[in-house]
């Protein structure tokens, strides 16, 4: 078993699909989904995308693109792709564990900013009240939160996703707009797509820690397709590198006891029973859909179907507050219950 830090570097641009890529429509009484006219890439790949990329990489390394021998392929990558609703622990062949995905910019590691940072880049100051909502003096309802990233080793260092005239901070990506035609069969079918590419002059890569039963991945350069447009990524494995620890603290000015709290450091899937466990949160949900396939001989890798059941995740960066230790414990138990999610880098958190 080897532990690596894996760097996924976009060679040019990338496009990671989001839920809003699909638009619902009614057809013979049923709801179906079709690609929307206007599509914008997500800034980070989903964990399922990273898993898919690693599975592809292993197949490619072992000459199994397309799959020649099902047994070999299954040994490498398991029998099927990620299945959110499976209660049994899934087996992804040689891939054993993934961490959440982070963004490395010139050797600094970044993650989406926790949700207690306002648009002026100030952390909210909590004044907890007994049996009541906290008072947050520097929270302005009509203003938004900071939609960007922080450096995990120094949370006072901010990084925008794209150029932002307001905050004037450095930024990671540049928008690439593409106007396409004839995506659909109807006449005059235009579509607009916004992909991203790294800010020139910056060394950018998505990074993940992986545990994988393949010892000879270092000192090699792999090129694999990733994302909805199958853009090329350059992938490298490093045994001697690891992610720094995340140290994050809330700012509290309160006479009352400070409640226990946790910060989600990856998107998290939990049962709605948790809704009764936290007494306050700064949180946001997002819809979750992903692509599925089975490991089969001669599968044209790339033939996937979108999952039908719509799931919801809590967004990474959400913060939850608990007035009792037992509630916090139950919440953590609920997070860890979904072992398949945890295994591929979802459902990770830190206590604050």
């Amino acid at each position, binding site marked *: 078993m080897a532990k690596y830090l894996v760097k996924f570097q976009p060679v040019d641009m990338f496009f990671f699909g989001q839920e*809003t890529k699909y*638009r*619902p*429509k*009614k057809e013979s009484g049923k*709801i179906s989904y079709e690609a*929307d*006219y*206007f599509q914008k890439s997500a800034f980070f790949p989903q964990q399922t995308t990273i898993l898919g990329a690693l599975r592809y990489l292993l197949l490619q390394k072992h000459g199994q693109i397309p799959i020649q021998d099902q047994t070999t392929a299954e040994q490498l990558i398991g029998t099927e792709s990620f299945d959110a*609703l499976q209660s049994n622990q899934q087996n992804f062949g040689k891939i054993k564990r993934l961490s959440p995905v982070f963004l490395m910019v010139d050797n600094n590691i970044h993650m989406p900013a926790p949700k207690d940072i306002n648009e002026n880049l100030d952390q909210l100051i909590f004044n907890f009240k007994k049996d009541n*909502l*906290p*008072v*947050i003096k520097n*929270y302005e*309802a*009509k203003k*938004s939160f900071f939609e960007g990233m922080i450096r995990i080793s120094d949370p006072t260092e901010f990084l925008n996703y794209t150029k932002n005239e*307001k905050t004037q901070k450095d930024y990671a990506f540049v928008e690439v*707009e593409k*106007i396409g035609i004839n995506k659909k069969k*109807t006449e005059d079918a*235009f579509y*607009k797509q916004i992909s991203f590419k790294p800010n020139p002059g910056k060394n950018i890569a998505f990074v993940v820690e992986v545990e994988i039963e393949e010892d000879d991945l270092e000192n090699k350069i792999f090129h694999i397709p990733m994302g909805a447009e199958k853009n090329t990524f350059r992938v490298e494995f490093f045994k001697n590198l690891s992610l720094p620890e995340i140290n994050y603290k809330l700012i509290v000015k309160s006479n009352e006891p400070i409640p226990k709290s946790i910060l989600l450091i990856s998107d998290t*899937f*939990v*049962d*709605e029973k*948790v*809704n009764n466990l*936290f007494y*306050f*949160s*700064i*949180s*946001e*949900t997002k*819809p979750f859909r992903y692509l599925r396939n089975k490991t089969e001989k001669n599968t044209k890798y790339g033939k996937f179907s979108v999952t039908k*059941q*719509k*799931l*919801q*995740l*809590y967004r990474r960066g*959400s913060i939850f507050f608990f007035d009792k230790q037992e509630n916090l414990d139950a919440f953590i138990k609920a997070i860890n219950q979904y072992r398949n999610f945890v295994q591929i880098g979802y459902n990770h958190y830190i206590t604050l």
Partner: protein
Amino acid sequence: MKYTAITIGPIYKTINQARKTREIWAASFLFSRGIMQEFIDKLLNQGIAKEDFIVPYPDIQTEGLKEIGLFPDRLIVRESRKDMFEKVAKEVLQKIKSEFHGAGCSDEDAEKYLKNYFYINIVEEDIPEGENVIDKISQKLAISELSEKIISRDPDCITKFLLNITKTDLHKSVYAGERSFPSLIEISTGKMIDDKELLDKLNKIHKETKKKDNQDDDIIEKIKNHKTLKKHFKQAHKYIAIVQSDGDNVGKLIEQIYKSDTRKLPVFSKALADFARNASKKIKDYGGYPVYAGGDDLLFFAPVITFNQNIFTLLNKIDDDFNKIILQNQQLKDIVDKMDTKPSMSYGVSITYYKFPLYETRNLAYKMLTQKAKEEQKNKIAYYWQKHSGQSFEDTIGKNSDFYKKFVDLIKNNIQASVLSSFIYNLNEHQFILKEIINQPDKLKNYFDNFYDESEHKTPEVKAFKKLLIDLLQSAYSESGGDVDKTLNKVYNVLRFYKFLNEKAQ
């Protein structure tokens, strides 16, 4: 003194799931009428006196405006009423549940949504006499909305509700027997002519085109195939304007009322309700369709152009109402006069091609309002124009500025398309000249006289247009703080937009 308040939602999260005009209407109406109006009616029935309502004005008249969401998302009353509020909240949500059930969501799934999606957050607060109740409670209500609950396996009830909206009681209560909320092209072409006979033909086309996914394509096809209507069909008819607007310094006015005379609060509340009604009527007269009009907050669809007006003429009319009803309100005048910066309205406008996703158009309007129009001195219009080709233009204009006045005057004109095209072309080509003389009206006049000396340039309309253009360049220069590039860009955008307003359909 104790106060009890609610905030309801999630409004924008629901609106963002809407894909068609009637779905955006439904998503907003569900909260305004389905939840808030129900809540107020029940409170009044339970004996809460009208005088005890701080916000909103409890006597909002819906006569003639029954399809519009006139009730805001917040409510504050005097006295401690938490138990009553909790009981009423349960009743109101149960009524919503039956709507979802009717739309194809199972009982169990609808119940999930009541518990974990919709919220009626109740807050109680003891506030000393003389303090700004509205401000303090609004802050607490806002904090209560930071928490979101999860529905891990999402039965997609909102999508089902919106897709099946015409089958629900909520829809039937407004559109029983009549057609539903109009589609995008129905709105954008609704007032493209004023000739009665032609209008009847147009309405017939609207009525007869079946409501299905490519309904808008069908309507356009029929208009283009109609011998007479096609002559009036312009490129701008394929675009829709969505406007989100919000009062500026209204919070400061409330603060001033609290400092001066709290008895003026109900006057102010009523004035806001009156403004919302009047604005809704103006929007409807123009050919627009208000979705939500809760006090100083407006959300509406509108045609970019009608046979004799454009979206900016509508915004000016709404502004006039705001000035008359709020600023010049006899009973509030003393208080308003004491304010250094008076209340005003700011607008975020997005103008997009009809195939562009509506949720994104609405989002753009919201962003233009919050990130551009309401920055710094406020009292602005921030518009974003997304062309079908993918190009986009945006500008933020101070409503009191000379530039805005010139802008509105210029786009009222009607000069030949070819002449206008030459102006646009030359403005770009001759940047190097214009940069030198931009702040010198005499030299600008010489430039225009020299470069535009064909016979077609000597008509009174073009002469007047040249003068307007010189004035526009001057005021743009001033508005841009002397930045020559910004000036030319601003004016270039105005001319291109003006061309777009008059272009025949392709």
